């Protein structure tokens, strides 16, 4: 069976793909759907959902449109989720490749370093990093990347260790290719599938971390985010439930979608695992 057919055989993965496509669409066209600043008051304050067809999800204490906030928040969530994951994957791949390929004391040193970052509490560290370097989209993305690269490094290291003794790598060595070239043009392409599966699940975790940070008030003050909306609505829970319910549902659906896609990808690239999983 081809990759796409194995993926499509998963109803969950397809649902995930549809959900994510919807979120991506809203994020891409947020500026067109809801032109103007989502921080701007547009209607009467604390309008409950369904009260006014102009603001189907209601408005907050300052009369800001919740639906507009959600659309613009989708951008921030996806952007930070994807970019921080890409940065973490880059760091993890480089360190894991060097450790796995060279072995010996280099491997020892890099693995102790990785273990160190894996031991210290990730979320607490992200909080400290963002707080000290003042909240901005750069510090948030950087902090999430810093706490999430270790699993990638371990994965890539293990793959490199098992692949470096294979014939095609030995052939490249015999041909006199340089280590760097062997690492990145011979071995790395063969480790792509597990990296992609891990990365897809990391995007989901990154989105959860970003929303938790902005819930605690560590969001970028120039960008509307789902976590911030919930954090700001926390004290209004009794009076205006819709302020915190809708952004939470948005996070939940996005994270579920990405997890479903990740699981589908996992089964599609590792068909031999299928029998064991279901």
């Amino acid at each position, binding site marked *: 069976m081809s990759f796409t057919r194995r993926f499509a055989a998963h109803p969950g993965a397809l649902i995930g793909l549809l959900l994510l496509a919807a979120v991506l669409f809203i994020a891409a066209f947020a500026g067109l759907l809801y032109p103007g600043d989502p921080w701007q008051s547009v209607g009467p304050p604390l309008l409950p959902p369904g009260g006014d067809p102009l603001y189907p999800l209601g408005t907050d204490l300052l009369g800001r449109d919740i639906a507009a906030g959600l659309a613009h928040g989708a951008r921030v969530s996806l952007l930070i989720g994807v970019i921080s994951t890409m940065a973490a994957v880059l760091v993890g791949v480089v360190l894991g490749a060097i450790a796995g390929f060279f072995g010996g004391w280099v491997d020892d040193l890099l693995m102790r370093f990785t273990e160190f970052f894996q031991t*210290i509490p990730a*979320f607490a560290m992200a909080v400290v990093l963002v707080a000290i370097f003042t909240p901005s989209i750069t510090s948030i993305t950087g902090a999430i990347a810093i706490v999430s690269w270790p699993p990638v490094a371990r994965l890539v290291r293990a793959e490199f260790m098992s692949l470096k003794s294979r014939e095609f790598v030995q052939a490249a060595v015999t041909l006199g290719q340089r280590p760097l070239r062997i690492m990145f043009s011979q071995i790395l392409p063969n480790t792509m599938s597990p990296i992609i599966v891990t990365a897809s699940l990391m995007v989901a975790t990154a989105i959860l971390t970003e929303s*938790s940070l902005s819930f605690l008030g560590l969001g970028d003050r120039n960008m509307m985010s789902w976590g911030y909306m*919930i954090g700001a609505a926390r004290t209004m829970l009794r009076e205006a439930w819709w302020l915190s319910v809708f952004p939470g549902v948005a996070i939940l659906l996005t994270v579920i979608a990405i997890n479903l896609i990740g699981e589908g990808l996992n089964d599609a690239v590792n068909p031999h695992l299928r029998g*064991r999983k*279901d």
Partner: protein
Amino acid sequence: MPEGDGRNMKSLDFILRRLAKAFFVVIGVVILNFLLIQLAPGDPAAVMAGDAGAGDAEYLAQLRAQFGLDKPLPVQLWNYLSGVLTGDLGYSYRNQLPVLDLIMDRLPATLLLTGCALVFSLVFGILFGVIAAWRRGGVLDSTIMFGALLFYATPLFWTALMAVLLFSIKLGWLPPFDMETIGANLTGWARVKDIAWHLVLPVVTLGLFFTAIYTRLTRASMLEVMGQDFIKTARAKGVPKGRIIRRHALRNAFLPIFTFASLQAGQLVGGAVLTETVFAWPGIGRLMFDALLSRDYPVLLGVFLITAAMVVLVNLIADLLYRFVDPRIEQGA
């Protein structure tokens, strides 16, 4: 040399190695804290003072003298390191208290919350995981796994808020905030009951996220074990399925579950920060949130260091316990 002595020597060697490793991780976190103070935008003395103390020129001068902030970096690092190792985690200008005192005051509440949540999630995670593995492919399995995905994907702070909305605001069953009824001045058994009542929502909220993780993990490791030869042998011998699950599969699946649980200690701390923030639970997570609001960096860094040290301790104890429980394991040797 008798064989027993050789093993004891090996065990001693393992324990010493493991202790050294734990020690170096803690030192590493202290150095990391020091680097953060140096790298932060602005004057290191202002960072050490926190926002509240940064305006007090005399206090800044005192900090500069104490940590030798005009001296070369290695000297500063040494001053900082020796300070932390003798229990000086800095001073909270805002609270007018040493950081260590503030943290020690809040630690019991966090240990109570995270301890209960851990037990809750292990009990229900293993239970649901075993049921799902037992009924693999069935309706029960799909329902449990869907529930696990749902709680795994829900932001913890949002679960907490929704629990308050439903059980405190709409139904009025459970208290939404604090650790005990303020002003009730209960003592003895009545106070224990009051705290237990306040514990329900925070523990279930924090616990559900980890229940989701342990359910997935238990199911996976049960299925892994059940594919092995000794299970097939037991089946061929005609051992009933329930007995295979309990006596054979679950026993062998326990080890990976507990290994994973100890590795999750750090995540539990992160979850506590969010849970305590929502429920105004008077632990170190809430202390961290308050420190964020008032930009009290000494408290922030102190909480980070103490939680990291706690995680290192939990991992250390877990490693030593495995060695004791399962002599086949000879990690790091």
